[in-house]
């Protein structure tokens, strides 16, 4: 059965015990993203801080309703992104996006993706790719909004 290749133990763990879940204050930007095909949704907040002139993700909080893949992906993402400089986190998100588009062909880089390598099997099921990407897309949107606002403040 192929099920185990997609639903790795890591994913089921994150699904049952999602990390960093819940909406927290203060925050710099909040977004609400939806997958219209299935009704999965996520509300996501981002707080940035300045470290030596570089923006760093201070906190990422979220609330979401959705399938095990979308929930686990949000949880894994929060582990990867919190505390990282925005630039580095954006690069990780691109690596993850490439993995999702690979149709099972890519060998995932555990050094870069850590727990997110568990989602490699999802790329073989095109219908579930959007599930894995929902939270990442929301985070990118929230972060770029937060950065825009910071830019305005500085001006």
């Amino acid at each position, binding site marked *: 059965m192929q*099920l185990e290749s997609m639903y790795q133990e890591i994913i089921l763990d994150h699904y049952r015990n999602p990390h960093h879940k819940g909406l927290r204050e203060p925050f710099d930007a909040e977004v609400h993203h939806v997958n219209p095909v299935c009704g999965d949704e996520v509300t996501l907040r981002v707080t940035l801080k300045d470290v030596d002139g570089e923006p760093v993700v201070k906190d990422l909080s979220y609330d979401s309703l959705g*399938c*095990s893949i979308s929930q686990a992906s949000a949880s894994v993402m929060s582990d990867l992104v919190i505390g990282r400089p925005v630039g580095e986190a954006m690069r990780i998100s691109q690596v993850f996006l490439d993995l999702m588009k690979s149709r099972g062909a890519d060998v995932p880089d555990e050094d870069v993706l850590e727990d997110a390598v568990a989602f490699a099997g999802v790329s073989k099921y095109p219908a579930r790719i959007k599930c894995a990407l929902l939270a990442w897309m929301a985070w990118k949107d929230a972060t770029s909004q937060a950065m825009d606002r910071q830019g305005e403040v500085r001006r």
Partner: protein
Amino acid sequence: MTAATEYLNVEAIRADFPALTRTVRNGNQLVYLDSGATSQKPVQVLDAERSFYEWHNGAAHRGTHLLGEEATDAYEGAREKVAAFIGAQPGEVVFTKNTTEAINLVAYAMSNATVTGAFPGSERFRVLPGDEILITEMEHHANLVPWQQLCERTGATLRWLGVTAEGRLDLDHLDDMITGRTRIVAVTHQSNVTGTVPPVADIARAAHEKGALVIADAAQSVPHQPVDVAALGVDFLAFSSHKMLGPYGIGVLFGRAELLEAMPPFLTGGSMIEVVRMEGSTFLPPPQRFEPGVPAVAEAAGLAAAVDYLTGLGMGNVAAHEESLTAHALDTLREINGVRILGPDSTKDRGGAVSFEVQGVHPHDVGQVLDELGIAVRTGHHCAWPLHRALGVQASTRATFYVYNTHAEVDALADGIRYAQRFFGARQ
């Protein structure tokens, strides 16, 4: 996995459907429980469409050569068959792309009547600011969004009937909800989520008493139960070929003759005109007025073959077969701890769509497990997002039944759900 019920010889029927012989994931035989999304096709339909292209293909209603004549006969012959199937006159059957386009046709005819008033008698279709459009919370988006948009275009107010916890229409305040300002009442004839069959004839009577038009979304009813437009008393009715064993790309709008006579067109162009001058054009009588462009004749030939196939089975038998499957599904799923069925718990006024929640397992994940077992269902909100909110559910898993499904396939569904519960460690 085949059986004959007292209503249909399912084994013989399945032999007509090549798709049902497929193996899918993990070498499993296909168990197709998604006919509510689209139905599989019998060879008779495929042969009719192919044969048309091979031997009779010409552009209908144009020119004077033999192939054109044969194509016209095929198209108009299909129209007559479809009309007889629903108890209408051929002139009351308009071919569209699908149900969604058919409903949009009426909605746009109404706003077009409001803007131009080009047709005598089209005043009755006008929608003015402060007028009302009445729909329900049970609707598929196809019979919801076009009415929202009509209100946006005209300044009318959208109102809606609610849904009870049992998944029936809340008709307690029907007489208050239809007012002297209601222009049209749009209601489903059979819910694609809960299978609920609202009392459309009663609703039509109440609407007509106040001078309102009535349109029924019959996408899930015409394929699955005998439908007679006179008995329903509706002014308009819409359905799709691809949900009733026919090809994609063709659907039907039924409209009462005197209404179509007075209705402005929606899409314009060739085929629907009478005289065209640079200064202006006039339009043909119905149904041609509503059929612009070259007609989808091959698809009409396929639909005609689908109507023949269903007529051969007998729609009463089709409905009885599905009721038997639905009853078995309700009984079997009710036994599974942690499964909540949406909608009515009996087959009374309830057709063959069974949507359910599995506690602790999201529909996507249920659907994924079932897919691995070869079972095709639908997951999500099934283009009925407000209905899901009204039932207090984010999303659901849906199984739908048709002429080629068996009791054993229902059992396979139940086994698959139990497997999904075990896999995800959900409470059983």
